[in-house]
Every structure is written in C-alpha cells, then in structure tokens.
C-alpha cells in the first residue's frame, strides 16, 4: 500500500466496450428446430392432479413434458418463528431438487434463490390477513427437471394452495419464454435453456389480469420484450383455464 511519492494512484475501473460472452447464434439466419417438434409459440401439454400427498393439507402434482414436480402445502399451522403476534400470516417456501432430477446425478440441495422467487410469486396472490399469527409452508420438489422448472413449480404451488383451502385472490399461472437468436421460444426445454440468450418468466393471475412477478435475464430488444410479454400473458390465461378444470374435476370427484 506504500505508494512511491509522485506516482499515480492505483485505480480500478471496468473495461467498457467488450462483450463478456459472444452470442451463440452469430448467424442471423439460423433457425432453431425444437427437439420435441413443437412450434415456437406452442406450450407443452400440461397435466395437473391435486391430492398427491396424503399427509399434507394440500398438494398437487404437475407434469409438463418431462418436467415433473410435486408441491405440498402444510398449514396454516403454528411455527416457532411466528411467535410474535402479527396481523398477517407468514408464507414459507422451500424449493428443492431430488438427486435424480438432473441427467447427471446431483447433490439434491435446496435452492435458496428459487425459494425466494417462489415466495415472491405466491405472496401477492394469497390473502395473508386471513391467517394471522400462523404460517403456511410450501414445499416444492422437482422430481425430474426438463426445462422451465420454476414456472411449472409456481403453477403447481398455486394449485396445491387452492387444494389446501387457503384463501387466494386468484390462481397463479407462470410461463417462461427464451430468446434464441432472433426466435422467441415459449416453454423452453432443458437444451433450449442452455442455449438461450435471454429469458423472461412471467407470473400472473389470469382472471384479474395482474402480474405478480416478472423476471428478465440476458439481452433483450424492446420489440422482443413486448412480443414476449404478450405471448406469456396469452399462455398464462390458457394455463389458468387448464388449472381450473383440474380443480373442478377434483372437487366434483370428492363430493358425495
């Protein structure tokens, strides 16, 4: 740290004008063919079923293509952290992968980042003031990761919350869009996610037309942003209808 008298002070400043990563699709005319033969604006067929876990207050299983998740909801119940009286309830989210979820066997640790994103997506939709002083625990487990894990988990979690009888403003549907060169691809698979230049995940409440969470990564141009958001909103409303039919079927099956 001893500077010689008369020498310039040592500074640190970033080098501007140098891109950190060359774009994967250098050739503007490259066309991407989706591995499962879908159109660019076509989502995978969704399968939802509630009541997957017997011991939980509410639970749901979702399968979109090869992405399979189970979400279980416990509560409202008392928790040690909620000892202080509060007017609103607490939402506690936990997102974890199983060890066999990825093609290469992994550690199965829980993702703190995804947990907090799941929390932000759901807390706008739940009426927290209906269960003061108690906690609702949401545990999400990804059984197989086949691309766009977080959006599938968010949709599945809102179904599980509805199954548990927790009051919500609306169901939450989530969809993600990937930018591959000049193409916008909805509901990306694992392979497409690894090649993407940018991604957008939109979580919205379809009947209320309100967005609870918006996540952009990568480089986006303004017309692409507009187009991608329109795509997402359309897909979310369609996904919302699918989720609603699933709940209605479950409700009519259980009524005696």
């Amino acid at each position, binding site marked *: 740290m001893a500077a010689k008298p008369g020498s310039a002070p040592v500074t640190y400043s970033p080098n501007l004008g140098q891109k950190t990563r060359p774009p994967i699709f250098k050739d503007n005319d490259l066309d991407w063919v989706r591995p499962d033969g879908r159109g660019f604006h076509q989502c995978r067929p969704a399968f939802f079923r509630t009541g997957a876990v017997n011991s939980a207050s*509410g639970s749901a299983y979702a399968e979109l293509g090869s992405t399979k998740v189970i979400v279980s909801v416990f509560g409202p119940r008392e928790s040690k952290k909620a000892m202080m009286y509060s007017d609103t309830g607490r939402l506690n989210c936990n997102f974890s992968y199983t060890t066999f979820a990825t093609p290469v066997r992994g550690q199965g640790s829980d993702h703190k980042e995804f947990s907090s994103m799941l929390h932000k997506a759901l807390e706008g939709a739940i009426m927290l003031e209906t269960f003061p002083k108690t906690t609702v625990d949401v545990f999400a487990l990804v059984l197989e990761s086949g691309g766009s894990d977080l959006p599938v988990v968010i949709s599945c979690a809102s179904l599980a919350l509805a199954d548990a009888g927790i009051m919500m403003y*609306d169901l939450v549907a989530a969809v993600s869009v990937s930018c591959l060169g000049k193409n916008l691809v909805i509901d990306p698979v694992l392979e497409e996610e690894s090649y993407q230049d940018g991604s957008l995940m939109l979580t919205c409440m379809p009947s209320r037309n309100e967005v609870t969470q918006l996540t952009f990564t990568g480089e986006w141009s303004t017309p692409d942003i507009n187009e991608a958001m329109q795509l997402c909103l359309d897909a979310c409303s369609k996904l919302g209808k699918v989720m609603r039919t699933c709940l209605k079927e479950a409700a009519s099956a259980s009524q005696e």
Partner: protein
Amino acid sequence: MRGLQLPLSQTQRIRLQRALEKLQSLSCKANSDASVTVADTIPVNYEDAFLKGHGTTDLNGDLVATVCGVVERINKLVYVRALRARYKPEVGDIVVGRVVEVSQKRWRLEINFSLDAILMLSSMNMPDGIQRRRTALDELNMRGIFEENDVVCAEVRNFQHDGSLQLQARSQKYGKLEKGQLLIVDPYLVKKSKQHFHHLEQFGIDLVLGRNGFIWVGEHVEARDSMVVDQANSSEQSMVPEEKNKTHTPLEMRQNICRIANAVRVLSTLGFSIDADLILETVELSSTVKIDIHDMLGSEFHVLVAEREAERRSLVGKRKR
C-alpha cells in the same frame, strides 16, 4: 394419493361405482353447479341486499370466490364452504389432542387447527379431586399429569383475543387417554351430536369422537366420580393407577380395538360421516362376513361397506316417503 387408491378388480370397480352413484342420487344436496374454484364469480342477484361471508371477496363489483368449495346461502348470507380446510372450533366442542409442549402453568396441545390449543393448569382437575389453588408445587409436578405426546380429551372453553383456543378438562370424563389408538380423519366427517363419548359394552371399549377429526378407540376405563371419594378410599385408589400400568391388555381386547379402528379407517376413506351407530354396524358387517382384521382395509370390504350404506340410505329414504 388421496381418495380411494385400492387395487379394485373389474367387478369390484363396477359395484363400487354403482353404490356411489346410488348414494349421490339419494343425497339431497346434489347441486353441482354450486361448486366454485378460486376466482370464480358467484351467481348472486345483485338487486337483493346480501352479506358477503367467508371465502368471498369483491372484484370490480362482482362477487368472487377465494377458496375452492361449495356456495352456501343462508337467508341473506352468501359464503363459500371450503371442501378441505382445517377444523373450525366452536365453544363447547369436545376435542382430542396430543400434548406438544409443557410450559409455564399450561400445556400446549396439537388439535387439527391452525394454532395449538392451550390447556391451563387451572382448567384441569387435580388428581386428588380437591378444588384448591394451584401452588408452585403443582406447577413443578405438571409433568406427572401430562407429558409430551400424551393424548388428552378436553372441551373448548373459549377463544382468546388473538384467535388461539383455550381448553378445559374439568370433569372426570376428560383427561388423559390411555391404552388405545388415536385415528386421524377429516374434521368434516364428525358432525356435532349429543354424545361424543361412547361406551361400547359388548366390546368393553371407549370411543371418543373428537370434533377436530381425532378419534380415540381404547380400552374402557371406569370414570371415578371425585365427589364420592372420601378420605378412607383415597389412599386405596391412589394405588390403583400404579397397578393398572402393570396390567396387560388381553389379546381379545386388542383385536377388538383394531377391528373398530379399521372400521373407522374404511368409513373415512369412503368419505362417510362417522358416528357410533355406523361404526358398530360396520364392525358387525365385518364379523358376519368373517373377514380378517387386516383384510378390512382391502378392496372387497370397502366395496361391501359402500353397498351396504347405499342400501341403508335408500331404505331410510323409502321409509320417509
């Protein structure tokens, strides 16, 4: 998975479906258009004045549901009754709970509610039956009365200002439950009735139907009346509990307990309301068909119970007309 997930053969599946269809046609509340999911609009005549109840909210002037359930209308009140929700306690309900924690002058019990219920030391009868002020010595001996993981039967006394529940166990029929099984079913299957304590004489078994969905099936214990106790007998009776701990429950008693417990499990899987008469009939059915205790949880017995319930309800319906 929730619901009936038994391996049913083709004929069993058809029989079960027919029985369930018959039950559905007999039930008077067969209005499936009243079921709503989250954010469905509730059909209401907006000119009439109506009250918005639980499970509803206002969205741009429309009445919208916030839970999945059935729309109920009582006079001017419109609310949505959730299909699967936690137990909703009322004052005077009899509940069965498990002790979670022993803290200062109170026990915390887990009942199937969003908060733990509190049983104060002062709401509990002392073992010697004398009504007196609880001293510090009583507080230190709390563990001698109830410990963690004990099953306790009590009555709901009141709600506190922050929403938590206070219980009381002031008479001899409440208190620690021993020598039996605790079963957990959905709370809406246990309806409010005049009697929640049942003593099944032919089996010598006590049945406690807690309104929170916790059901206790256990060996019959003679309830001592604390008023009759006088000084001479009190020393004798204080020795009796120690002797009871040493007595072994006979095999036949245990088999009866298991049979009744399995009958309750079958009824809860099929989704029928649980009351003592129905349980007794199911147990009689199992003994007439000479089915083994562990076979009671198999598919054949489930189908038999469903069919018999459908017949019973159609007979009741015919008698009414």
